[in-house]
């Protein structure tokens, strides 16, 4: 098991190195940062000095190494657009995104698993069929459209909830800001959280349903029924646990992608998080911000993947045995 974990960690580092290379290549090949940073009135001397300052005159591997060195320390240079250190901007924006992603994730997970079980058990029921049809609408409805429609309904027509921003925030510690503690902050969170969570919820629900139906067809479920166990026990003790094994991976990835999908929600609601920052960076070809965002989100994804893999061990006893022992037939 330890060997497995070490191998997984190693693989994760490899992924990060590759992503780092992509991010670094963006610096090197996409646009000329010197062009971007200096205005129209520039001299050759200005250009040369800036190139040397940025280390752009060094050979490629040296530059890559320097980039990695800096990246590990969280240093991605200055934003072309704002002229401030990228790390500073990211840290400022991160709490907004994390709070939004957390609330949406909880919503998606609880709703998705609950509805997935329900629709699998009541396969032929009217309610389950209605939920399934609605879920297809949910999958077809692009996230941004959900957001726009929610704004139209609850902000424009009904005027109940704010259509943009984060409301009043409270500062906690050095850099964390939270919207959980004020009424406007909580109200502002509702629509974005639903927008972001709904799509993931439908996906998780459909996945749980498919897996659960597959498991319910299994021999051991039949055998459990043949032993006269109650439906409750068959569904929740026997089927659910087996359903969760494959569901965990994809759900883990889904939750990771919430952070990426936050880009869309944040743009719709002008939510001051890292996603909105990233979109603005793409629009203005602000490479350092794009690269930093990419690296940050990669670390998160790789971390989530690693945790998901380790969760397998907690659930599936077949993985806990040492394979070399060979007790299985």
């Amino acid at each position: 098991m330890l060997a497995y974990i070490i191998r997984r960690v190693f693989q994760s580092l490899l992924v990060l190195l590759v992503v780092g290379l992509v991010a670094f290549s963006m610096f090197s090949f996409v646009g000329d940062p010197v062009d971007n940073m200096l205005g129209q009135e520039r001299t050759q001397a200005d250009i040369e000095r800036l190139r040397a300052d940025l280390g752009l005159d060094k050979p490629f591997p040296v530059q890559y190494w320097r980039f990695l060195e800096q990246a590990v320390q969280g240093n991605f240079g200055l934003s072309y657009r704002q002229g401030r250190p990228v790390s500073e901007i990211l840290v400022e924006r991160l709490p907004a995104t994390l709070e939004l992603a957390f609330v949406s994730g909880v919503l998606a997970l609880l709703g998705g698993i609950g509805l997935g079980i329900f629709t699998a058990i009541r396969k032929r029921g009217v309610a389950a069929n209605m939920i399934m049809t609605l879920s297809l609408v949910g999958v077809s409805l692009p996230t941004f459209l959900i957001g726009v429609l929610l704004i139209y309904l609850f902000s424009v027509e009904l005027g109940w909830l704010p259509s943009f921003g984060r409301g009043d925030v409270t500062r906690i510690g050095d850099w964390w800001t939270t919207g959980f503690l004020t009424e406007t902050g909580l109200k502002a969170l509702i629509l974005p959280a639903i927008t972001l969570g709904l799509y993931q919820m439908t996906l998780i629900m459909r996945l749980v349903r498919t897996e659960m139906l597959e498991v319910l067809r299994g021999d051991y479920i039949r055998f459990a029924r043949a032993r006269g166990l109650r439906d409750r026990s068959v569904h929740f003790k026997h089927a659910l646990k087996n359903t969760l094994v494959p569901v965990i991976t994809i759900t883990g990835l889904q939750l990771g992608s919430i952070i990426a999908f936050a880009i869309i929600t944040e743009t719709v609601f002008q939510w001051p998080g890292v996603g909105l920052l990233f979109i603005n960076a793409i629009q203005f070809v602000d490479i350092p911000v794009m690269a930093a965002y990419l690296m940050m989100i990669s670390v998160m994804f790789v971390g989530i993947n690693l945790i998901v893999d380790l969760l397998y061990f907690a659930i599936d006893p077949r993985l806990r045995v040492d394979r070399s022992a060979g007790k299985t037939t």
Partner: protein
Amino acid sequence: MDKDPVLSVRDLVVEIPTRHGILRPVDRVSYDIHAGEILGVVGESGAGKSMTGNAVIGLLDPPARITHGEILLSGQPIHNIKREALRKLRGKKMGMIFQDPLTSLNPLLTIGDQLTETILEHLDVSQSEARERAIAALEEVGIPAARDRIGSYPHEFSGGMRQRVVIALALCAEPELVIADEPTTALDVSVQAQIVALLKRLCRERGVAVMLVTHDMGVIAEAADRVAVMYAGRLAELGPVREVITQARHPYTAGLMASTPMASQGAKRLRQIPGAMPRLGALPHGCAFHPRCDRATAECRADPPPRIDYCDGRAACWHPLAQKDTTKGEPA
């Protein structure tokens, strides 16, 4: 037999509506099983053997359903009772053993968990008592060091051991009837005999009625007291195992015997039955076996043969093979 049978199946019909019409995988089947008796149900795959077993225990997969006939367990009808009432009978009054021990145990629960939950469901005992009973059940089916292995997961057992666990699970609430659906098919040949012997012993010691579904004539010859031969959803022959094996009366049974390798037959060349069993959607008129039967006449092609009732020793055939010591009248 003077005592009431544990299981009586009367005129049972199972139908599956499909878009090409109604299929009838089980067509007017009747038989009894008494306490301490093993009834072997034999036939090719698709002959309706497993479907009969599933119908008895109430686990037909929709859209398959019982449309006719009755099933009596210890004299009480169980084919038309409520879902919940039937569930309470499963495990308690009748157990089932499935074909593949690899897939019939939940891989994520210990065998102890699976045993105790079944015992607690059906018997009014405490948690610790259930555990003791679980250990006893494992010991009874021949799991060595049962007390130590009760916390093991299914994957930690070999195939034969797993099938023993499955049998322990089916029997742990002390049912009167056990339906064993191809219990040896997925096992190694060397293990098969052990499992058959175990089933036989449990049947004799506990007086359980066993319905042994298999396509393996060897297993039938080894274990069964009586045998029911099924063909295309219908009962072809029913009788004591010795008589059916040595003096088959239905041409299909005779063909089945001739095509089965038996150690005692030595190096005699095996015969085969020409053709294949018809699909349920395209059953021939009259006797379902007539296209493959060398004794078939116009009669066979026109009308189905008279059904066997639940007495022994008769075959559903217009022209049964002659018997050396015929005691019962030929069906007209």
